């Protein structure tokens, strides 16, 4: 985390009530790449919750992580519809291309189920991937 000042700047945009917690966590995760212990403590203080309550919420949701991972990330859909279109056969090649440089993260459904295998990098989506296209996508990150 780059400093308490910027956490305070995020918190100032929200009402100090528990219902603000998820929107706050999204902002913190986007700004710092994680929600670490210091951020949890600061959020808890602002919302008048215990740190355990905030940690319970942070650890429940897949989108929030305790440590930042600076690597580029390819979110690869491996749910049923993409499995039916052969995503499992692409994984080995994608992981080989990624090595430790790129993170390949499994997600369940990007809503592109008629045109899988599908992937997401940031807010950019990719569909109809074959092995060459997926490896190319990984290599260009």
């Amino acid at each position: 985390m780059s400093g308490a000042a910027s956490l305070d700047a995020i918190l100032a945009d929200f009402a100090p009530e528990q219902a603000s917690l998820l929107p706050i966590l999204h902002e913190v995760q986007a700004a710092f790449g994680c929600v670490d212990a210091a951020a949890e403590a600061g959020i808890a203080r602002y919302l008048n919750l215990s740190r355990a309550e905030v940690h319970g919420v942070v650890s429940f949701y897949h989108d929030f992580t305790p440590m930042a991972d600076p690597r580029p990330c390819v979110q690869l859909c491996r749910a049923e519809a993409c499995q039916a279109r052969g995503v499992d056969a692409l994984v080995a090649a994608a992981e080989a291309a990624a090595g430790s440089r790129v993170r390949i993260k499994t997600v369940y459904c990007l809503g592109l189920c008629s045109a899988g295998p599908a992937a997401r990098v940031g807010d950019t989506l990719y569909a109809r991937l074959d092995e060459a296209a997926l490896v190319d996508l990984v290599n260009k990150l």
Partner: protein
Amino acid sequence: MSTVRISDDALALACGADALAAAFEAAGCTVERVSSWGMHWLEPLVEIDGHGFGPAGVDDVAAILAGTSDKAIGRIADHPFIAGQQRLTFARAGKTRPLSLEDYAVTGGWASLARARAMTPGDVLAQVLQSGLRGRGGAGFPAGIKWQTVANAPLGPTHPCKYVVCNADEGDSGTFADRMLMEGDPFQLIEGMAIAAHAVGADQGYIYVRSEYPHAIAKLRAAIALAAEQIAPFRLEVRVGAGAYVCGEETSLLNSIEGKRGEVRAKPPLPALEGLFGCPTVVNNVLTLAAIPHILSEGGASLYARLGIDRSKGTMPIQLAGNIRRGGLYETAFGITLRALIHDIGGGTASARPVKAVQVGGPLGAYIPPSQFDLPFDYEAYARADALIGHGGITVFDDSADMGAMARFAFAFCAAESCGKCTPCRIGSTRGVEVIDRIRAGGKAGADAVEALPQMHNARKAGRSREEDLALLADLAETMQSASLCALGGFTPYPVMSALKHWPEDFGQ
């Protein structure tokens, strides 16, 4: 030169629609970004004067403009995939710019809200009841009865107001109708929610969208800002999920909006009486709320009630997904068979191999073999066949699919996404993976290292036969089905047991 229309739906974007639009602009054309027709195998689809070209790439631009393209599909509205549909909820698909208030108004937008607001809340409820609309999220509960419960719920000091919540946490694989509607016709959803708010007496609403849908989130936020005046005094806010599948369950969704862990609540109390922040709350799926403007239009309720079969009234936006040649959105009246959907409309598998199975209703839906493809699309008919319609997603698998692996995946998915509150789901899903692994590996000869310890008095020392393991699996499935708090644990046995019943050969010898 005439206008070129290209979709800005997420699926079209994933297939290169932006680059294509830029290429047409570079060629001197005016490009209009519209919603998607739902013919996904043709995306990016280019429309010029009603004629379609797809799937089009940047290389096709010159030929399309010269009229020599081999990607021409003729008039889009006459295409069999479109002409065969009865589009009510998706009436604007492909035809309007999603964030154009002007397009929305000239295609009948806001008329139903004005009509509803001129009626008493009781009369609006009567229209929804008359239409026979049932919740499109999966459970199929009559929408009118849910609304009536909220409308009649008393207010008090601890629950001083009512809420309308839209469940847009469309996490089921094989479904994308909610996403298409939010991206393609967001005002219709907003109008439906404003009508619901009038009917039940709510002045605040939330749309809970999953974080995997960034384009839908952006469109909804923009649309709400544009429509704020139109729907006032009703206020609407988008809340973004955080990657938890179980938050599609209505009570865990409410907890998530409240800033809590997305754990399921025990019912009763029903959300209709004690929902968001303890207040009476309507929780409906995107497609349910988006069907409302049609139902509240002049004569809409009785038209809706005339469509469909038995107690499944109106139309269902069916989603053809997975290994299918012509995938996309197909809205039609209830009663259509899987055979018609998969073979006549969908054109069989994309891989040109025989169909082995289809999963209807997402990860918690049963796998259906080709021998049952005459089943009519109807809530009760599916229930009788130990299957469910769910959110109307159909995922097709060809003969290379390993149904034993799919059954294992169903348990593994449940284990990964369980909220952890109830034991059958939290523990049962993990035990389920182990039992299936054991069955597929040909059983276990004797006790393992832990079971062999002298202090493990009750552990079984002998191996299990396949029959004993299968009985154990059936017992586990029954426990999960009847004792789980919500549909995640309760319905995971559907894909597992249907796969075992119809494809026992995929579970080893």
